[in-house]
């Protein structure tokens, strides 16, 4: 009970336990190779359907039309709510696109 008595204060040193849990294993993931340019490329704009993100991406699409018309942009919605992974959409983009922009994340 020495520590109990010491816990009352003063200059005595106490030993206490750490309250923090154990972190998860971090597995490194390879990034997709970057494109050598966007001319003639197909870029998917992925709408996670959260807080007016679709309206935002339409402005992004307009920017490409105005400034980089050689880039073909395709706006797609995620298949459900943003909290669910959407492998079907990711596979479709891999098969048909050169790159993707997803937004807007909160």
């Amino acid at each position, binding site marked *: *009970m020495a*520590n*109990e008595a*010491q*816990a*009352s*204060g*003063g200059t*005595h*040193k*106490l*030993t*206490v*336990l*750490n*309250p*923090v*849990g*154990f*972190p*998860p*294993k*971090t*597995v*490194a*993931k*390879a*990034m997709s190779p*970057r*494109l*050598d*340019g*966007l001319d003639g490329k197909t870029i998917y704009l992925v709408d996670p*359907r*959260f*807080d*007016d993100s679709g*309206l*935002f991406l*339409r*402005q*992004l699409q*307009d*920017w490409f039309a105005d400034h*980089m018309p050689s880039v073909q942009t395709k706006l797609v*919605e*995620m*298949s*459900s*709510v*943003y*909290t669910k992974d959407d492998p079907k959409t990711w596979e479709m983009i891999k098969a048909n696109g050169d*790159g*993707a*922009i*997803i*937004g*807007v*994340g*909160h």
Partner: protein
Amino acid sequence: MALHTNAFEKVVQSVTRMHGMPQARYAFVPQPVMGKTAAQLRAYVDGIDPISGRPVMQEVVEGLTRPLEGDRIPEAKFERSTPRFVDTDTEENLHHLFLENNWTDNLPIILPTEERVAKMLAHTSRKPDEIAGHLRSNQFRQHWEFTVEKVAVNAVMAGARPEYFPVILALASAGVSARGSTTSSMAAMVVVNGPIRSAIKMNPGTGAMAPFNHANATIGRAYGLLSQNLQGGSLPGDSYMGSQGNNYMYNSVTFAENEERSPWEPFHVQHGFKATDSTVSIFTGCRSTAFTLGVRERYWREHVRSMLRGMDAHSAPTFLLDPIAARQFIDRGGFDRKEKLIDWVYENALMPAGEYWDYQLIQNYIYPRATFGEEPYASKLKAAPQEMIRMFKPDEIHVVVIGGETNGYWRIMGCNYQKTVSVDEWR
């Protein structure tokens, strides 16, 4: 390449790092996007990234084309990387350390000495090094792991008595965080049922949701502390993004159901347990509350409908009824079983379809599911704008009896039932 709003800079950095993608490419636009016009959003696109100070579209184009630097990061090692002890120090310095490390709820804590933790551990048959569960602050982060001893450390910090420990272990094991990170500032709610309530002297009666009972207060506080510390933190702007915060989080609205004065079967029996079992039931998403007095003879239906219409359409109602109000619902509506009252609420919580679908939370979380055919949302989507549709599903609506019969006040808590967990398994 991803675009985010600038309020989420730290979140984006920590989530991509923890998922093994520190090289992830992203750019930022100002917060908020919600509610802005097309012209305002185009100005975001044409404007400057508020984090990098460079044009947003320059960041976007370079994010897609600039070569990656270096190879893959080496795989991190999964060690028991959190030490069992903190460095020995004086009481004053240790309190300062716990506060500075965001290990507290900013109220004074009890320092978790070995002796105090050992006393806590003596109230479970589980071994200190047994894995008790996994927690994370939201679905975008990875689970952290913790042992029975780690739960005991947090229980001590909260001021809980050792005899409460099986209840706290049950809460920790449930895998449901009381420090969930959403911008909506949700809190948890905990309902305790069965013999453990009286064994540890929990309060189901007068003032049950107020700070007048040691077990109610400290079990709920322990649930919050263990959630933030065992999931890897709960830091505003980083791992906690509740815009306004929520006072309910201080003890996660923790109370015992008043089974003895309830005219209905206890909540845990409704969910498959025996009356002699001891359980904890966890709700999340607690934000909105409506209240009234009594169940009036003439207009009770209208009163309840009005209360339901005032609730957030995305958070289902849980009725928290003083025993007086519970009996009045039986007298007025013939609800001799909780299920009958739940059915009535399901039938009477109505809203015009156009109004329902325009709610931002419905747009974010329900509308996408409806458009891809998920029922009952897909059928609701077919309704004309003025057609009245049901706001909730029957299995989302719940009833709990709580209160000391000083009067017939009752309230509706907007929240989402998660699960009921056995306390007895953690004795």
